[in-house]
């Protein structure tokens, strides 16, 4: 599966009504591409979501809750989308090799990806990581040496340092 962050609230209305058009905000905000590529993190199954979450959350500056969506890789490639392995930009060294890009995306491909997002939501393959869980996950990763505290940025650095001091 391929994981990225998204904003559930932008997509939620379409879950109940299949005829509901996906909003432009959802596509331009959550499927924002660079060089026609969309950044994802690969996991073996949805139960491994925490790995992808850690790769993403350790880049955050703020403890805001975040929504993650896991898309089915086979579905994406079956629809003609290309996936390329690239080195990920994350403070978690052992996860850098799990980064994937959906590449050479076109306007039409974004419609395909948007449909995949809705399919994954209908399958329950999404999760909100709240502030408390986010801090727990990142703090544990630092405590076990998986992430260097100095690699964290902004408020997350201070909050995790505070949490570590209280252990």
């Amino acid at each position: 599966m391929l994981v990225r962050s998204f904003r559930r609230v932008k997509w939620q209305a379409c879950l109940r009504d299949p005829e509901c058009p996906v909003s432009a905000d959802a596509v331009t905000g959550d499927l924002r591409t660079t060089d026609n590529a969309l950044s994802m993190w690969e996991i073996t199954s949805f139960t491994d979501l925490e790995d992808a979450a850690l790769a993403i959350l350790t880049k955050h500056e703020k403890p805001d809750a975040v929504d993650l969506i896991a898309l089915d890789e086979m579905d994406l490639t079956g629809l003609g989308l290309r996936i390329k392995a690239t080195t990920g930009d994350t403070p978690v060294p052992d996860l850098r090799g799990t980064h994937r890009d959906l590449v050479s995306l076109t306007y039409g491909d974004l419609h395909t990806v948007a449909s995949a997002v809705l399919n994954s939501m209908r399958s329950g393959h999404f999760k909100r990581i709240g502030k408390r869980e986010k801090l727990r996950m990142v703090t544990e990763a630092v405590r076990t040496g998986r992430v260097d505290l100095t690699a964290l940025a902004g408020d997350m650095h201070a909050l995790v340092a505070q949490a570590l001091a209280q252990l």
Partner: protein
Amino acid sequence: MQISTDRPSMAVEIDKSTTPEPRRQKRPSAAVVPQSGLYTTLPSGSAEPGAADDSSAFSAVGTPEPSADRLRALRSENEAAFLAHLREGEFEYGFKSAADTFFERFLAEDSLVAVTWASCIFHDHFGEPAVAMAIMQVLAHLRYEQVRPHGPLMALAATRHASHEVQECGIRAFENWGDLASLRFLEQTAFAEPWLQDYADQVRTDLRAAIAPNHAG
């Protein structure tokens, strides 16, 4: 599954999902800046400076009422630029926005006046969900002590907004502030939208566990 690896293998990619795009310099919009009255859309009898601070439940604030003159000057000189950040800036959960940075300067000068200003904008633009959301996201990145009493009351109002996105911003703000008062506010709110109710329930559970372990469960 086919994974193409024809790109140079060690090329470091920027993670678009976690790294915000460089903030573009936004051109301030032609916002109308109220020149008189702090709460320009209130009936005239309610527009007295300091009216928004009449919250006896928060009498522990212990700071003087914001200067009406300073607040008017702040709005007159900076509101168009702030609104431009709120309307046109990029907001990505987990990251500091340009609006955050813009507001910090005023917060450092006088936090009560700055937060009162934020509440004025929220009040005047409650019918503009993008602005209401943006201002809540800015306040959600501050500490509860910095934003009370206006911040939690704004968050409470946000939870009553017709827009689910604004409602969610209200819950998110309480989650970020993460203190006992936030828990008490959330305990008195209910949501018609099931997934928002689930989110509020989760935040309540988290706050109880973090703040009041004796009430957890």
